[in-house]
């Protein structure tokens, strides 16, 4: 059965895979189906036919990779890892900065309003007691006496003004409280940023491992898997370095790796 499958695979991909690569594909299919290829011929044939398209894609992928290693490290993946995800992280951080600046500006203006309404309250109080001290410019302020009759006539107006000032106070305090949107959105954005950075790390490591493995294997086809992994580990350690604890690889490191493939 194995021989039958080998022939089938050779036919599908025009014999462009090596014997070892074909054996690996057979092993992969056997693992997926969970059956012994030698015992269940009919079952296996059905599976094989069904998977012939997938096998062809897989084989072509291996062939293409052998032809041009550098261009086949998916440019999309490289871009995603070295450009788009870091950009996304920067953009998110930018949102926090922008909203913080806007919130602070709004609160600056609100505090000015609160000071002004506090002044207005003082003026109304002094008017009601029959005196008027004109603020704005303390050096030029004058005491103005108001007679009791006038105060009585103006009393409804004073009351209305006092009530309005209280409303302004309530509204400005309310707006102040709602500036907490910056804190609430900021916390959520920080959580997303942590996730984005973790994704960036994992993708970078994947890219590095894959690139190093391919280039090392090409230079030294007989290298064992253990030695290959050691090369990857040494390179990753060298690039990470103690001075970059937790920070992972930067753009220039990735570029160096790609240049060496």
């Amino acid at each position, binding site marked *: 059965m194995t021989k039958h499958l080998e022939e089938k695979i050779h036919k599908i991909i025009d014999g462009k895979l090596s014997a070892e690569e074909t054996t690996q594909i057979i092993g992969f299919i056997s693992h997926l189906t969970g059956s012994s290829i030698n015992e269940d011929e009919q079952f296996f044939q059905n599976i094989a036919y069904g998977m012939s398209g997938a096998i062809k894609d897989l084989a072509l992928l291996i062939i293409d990779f052998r032809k041009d290693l550098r261009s086949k490290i998916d440019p999309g993946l490289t871009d995603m890892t070295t450009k788009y995800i870091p950009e996304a992280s920067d953009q998110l951080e930018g949102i926090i900065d922008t909203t*913080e600046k806007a919130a602070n500006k709004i609160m600056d203006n609100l505090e000015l309003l*609160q000071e002004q309404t506090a002044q207005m309250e003082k003026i109304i109080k002094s008017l009601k007691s029959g005196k008027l001290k004109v603020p704005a410019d303390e050096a030029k302020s004058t005491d103005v006496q108001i007679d009791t009759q006038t105060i009585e006539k103006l009393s409804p107006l004073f009351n209305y003004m006092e009530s309005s000032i209280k409303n302004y106070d309530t509204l400005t*305090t309310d707006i*102040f*409280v709602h500036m907490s949107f*910056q804190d609430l959105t900021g916390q959520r954005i920080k959580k997303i940023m942590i996730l984005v950075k973790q994704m960036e790390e994992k993708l970078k490591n994947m890219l590095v491992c894959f690139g190093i493995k391919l280039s090392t294997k090409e230079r030294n086809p007989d290298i064992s898997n253990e030695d290959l992994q050691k090369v990857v580990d040494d390179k990753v350690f060298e690039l990470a370095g103690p001075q970059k604890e937790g920070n992972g690889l930067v753009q220039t490191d990735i570029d160096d790796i790609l240049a060496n493939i």
Partner: protein
Amino acid sequence: MDLNMKVLVVDDFATMRRIVKNILKQIGFSNIIEAEDGKSAFKLLQNGSFDLIMCDWNMPEMPGIELLTKIRADEQLKTIPFVMVTAEAQKNNILDAVKAGVSSYIVKPFTAETVDQKLKKIFN
């Protein structure tokens, strides 16, 4: 409620500290100190006599719950009223805070009235 009391506002977001400070000022407090994380807050508490702490939960270095636990374990600081002001609104968070000895719990977003009511409940 003594409006001359010394209040410590702890939050890693400057905007939030400003909001809480403004509300406290509207209520009538004037002696308000800020800290941006639990660690620096604990240092300030050890060096000064504070009468009230308003603290966020999610902070780097030392989260609010950790600061609360540390304060309650300190002989000099354990009686200071501690109000958690946080977006964490799950039941288990509230239970954890109560177990750790929180005096009151305010969930963001909050109103000035809520803060006023909670503080009056603590001090009256």
